[in-house]
């Protein structure tokens, strides 16, 4: 156990752990499903990292180490729920059905968004730390006004927890008892900044001072994350108000492919966390506890490979957008400067004017 306050249902060795308030509700098939998601997302991440190294992406924000947090949270959602991610929630996006290639449009620098957020009920990546937390609360206020039993979940990191927007969103969520779940992935680092600089007490406790519950879950334990999130979402849907979940996890890789973590953290720390790997943990459970055969794992690996192959093809096929598309959708209504810009671009021969 990392911490006494931590909800954990599966030990790093893949053994079930009992907890007074939570127990896993998932059957073998469902657990295998979570494993499959995690393997695919890890593969997606690795493929993206190599695409970046090969110059095919401008940047990549790896999710490795955080698969359990994201898949546990993502799979706890109901279809009608709505999610507001930051920029690293590829696992959540996967659960929401966002096609992998769409997740990479931002990183290939061909789009500032990448998918239709209304279709997947998954908002676009938010890069400005914390902005999305207020959007989630506002959306949740809309849900309340519609009298609908939906929950809203927003994701942010330990670093973003220091931003005024996140803190104001706590005030508002409490005041309006909004059906929102704040999912903070404490991956121990905000680029080079240790999470202890953002808070000298466990982050989940911050919620209580705002008048709603906070809970810390082992973010590398997909079973625990799933149950904790599911209960918080259900509670939100029936008028129980907000919850802050702190998923205690670790960013195994660099902050992004532009980052060099050797400058600020020691290998020993990474080694410790390797032993808590979220994917290996479920695999151990499935092997030992559920007697799952190697073939099943091979099949998932094959599926992940196929996804990666397709992803690579899709990304390579993403060409440079026609520059004139920068004018599309900047405004809903007619705008003289948009017209002027389009005209200039055509006159300069930068674009043929296709839209």
């Amino acid at each position, binding site marked *: 156990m990392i911490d006494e306050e931590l909800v954990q249902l599966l030990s790093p060795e893949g053994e079930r752990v009992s907890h007074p308030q939570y127990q896993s509700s998932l059957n073998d098939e469902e657990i295998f499903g979570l494993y499959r998601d995690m393997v695919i997302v890890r593969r997606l991440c690795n493929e993206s990292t190599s695409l970046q190294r090969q110059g095919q992406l401008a940047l990549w924000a790896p999710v490795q180490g955080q698969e359990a947090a994201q898949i546990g949270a993502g799979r706890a959602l109901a279809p009608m729920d709505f999610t507001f991610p930051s920029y690293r929630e590829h696992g959540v996006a996967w659960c929401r059905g966002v096609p992998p290639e769409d997740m990479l449009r931002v990183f290939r620098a061909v789009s500032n*968004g990448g998918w239709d957020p209304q279709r997947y009920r998954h*908002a676009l990546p938010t890069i400005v730390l914390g*902005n999305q937390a*207020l959007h989630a609360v506002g959306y949740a206020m*809309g849900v309340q006004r519609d009298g609908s039993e939906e929950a809203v979940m927003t994701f942010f990191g330990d670093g973003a927890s220091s931003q005024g927007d996140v803190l*104001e969103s706590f005030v508002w969520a409490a005041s309006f008892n909004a059906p929102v779940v704040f999912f903070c992935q404490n991956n121990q680092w905000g680029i080079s900044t240790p999470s202890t600089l953002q808070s000298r007490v466990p982050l989940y406790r911050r919620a209580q001072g705002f008048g709603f519950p906070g809970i810390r879950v082992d973010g590398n334990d997909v079973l625990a994350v799933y149950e904790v999130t599911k209960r918080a979402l259900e509670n939100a849907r029936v008028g129980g108000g907000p919850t802050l979940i702190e998923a205690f996890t670790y960013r195994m890789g660099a902050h992004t492919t532009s980052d060099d973590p050797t400058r600020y953290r020691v290998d020993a720390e990474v080694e410790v966390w390797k032993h808590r790997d979220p994917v290996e943990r479920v695999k151990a459970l499935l092997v030992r506890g559920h007697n799952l055969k190697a073939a099943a794992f091979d099949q998932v690996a094959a599926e992940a490979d196929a996804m990666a192959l397709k992803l690579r093809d899709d990304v390579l096929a993403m060409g440079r957008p026609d520059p004139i598309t920068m004018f599309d959708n900047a405004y809903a*209504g007619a705008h003289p400067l948009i017209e002027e810009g389009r005209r200039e671009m055509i006159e300069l021969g930068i674009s043929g004017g296709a839209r």
Partner: protein
Amino acid sequence: MATTSMTMAKALNEGLRRAMEKDKKVLLMGEDIGKLGGVFRITDGLQKDFGEDRVIDAPLAESAIVGTAVGLAIRGYRTVCEIQFDGFVYPAFDQIVSQVAKLRKRSEGAYTMGLVIRLPFQGGIGAIEHHSESPEAYFAHTAGLRVVSCSTPNDAYWMIQQSIEHDDPIIFCEPKSRYWEKGEVDLDNAPHGLFDAVVRREGNDVTVIGYGSSVKTILRAAATAATEGVSMEVIDARSVAPLDIAPMIKSLEKTGHLVVVQEAPHTASVGSEIVAELTERCFYSLRAPGIRVSGYHVPYPPSRIEDDYRPSVDRILDAVDRVMGFES
């Protein structure tokens, strides 16, 4: 055309009421806008009639007011945010510039950022610091936003409704010093499109352009100028961004002289924009360079001396003289 006389404050109140009646998705949100009706009473009685769910008294945090309005927009609501005073919009600046202005583009049209940010702006009410600012240039400069300003009760009544109906986010600048002045309001027909500049007084010698509270000051200057034989054409820009440039060009082609009036300081301002743009488009019509009459480049002064900071009739007339006398 049946018209009714009312103050700009009342016209805004009636405009908001009508918008809320027409569309259930219209919400109001802001500080003290419920029981108190807002510090200027613009939302007076609306919470009583539309309920606390549609007229939302906000905890005191402007970034949250705008940030939650963004979330509500994603959910399909149209929120009119009231910022209590111009000087308190800055805590929301990040949400406005990084999200409100950019989300439609980022989502390639999937999100409609149909929200209005009401900003009582400009000075002239003898207030203390931060209550008399003119921040319109910040928003005019920001791609993705539109900025409008009303100068009469009739415009106030119609422009607020048009803004709420419009699918782009709009910074709605209300000249607070004119809230209590009365004017005729036509309850049946909108006088102009939301983004139209309007000639408020025709003239031949010099074109003077302004918006918000400056319009009336310019008209007073025009009356005085007329007695001295100078014929001022007065244009109310109304749409601060984008500018409705056509009527301005037309006017300048006639007068050849340009003065722009604003309360904001002149550096990188809307006034700079009007001068630069019209110079580019009417270079050969201009018989003198366009001149800006602006607030000075200092923090807004204590209000006992604000009338010497804000463009006055005298300063406008002085600018008109300068621009008219330029050739000689």
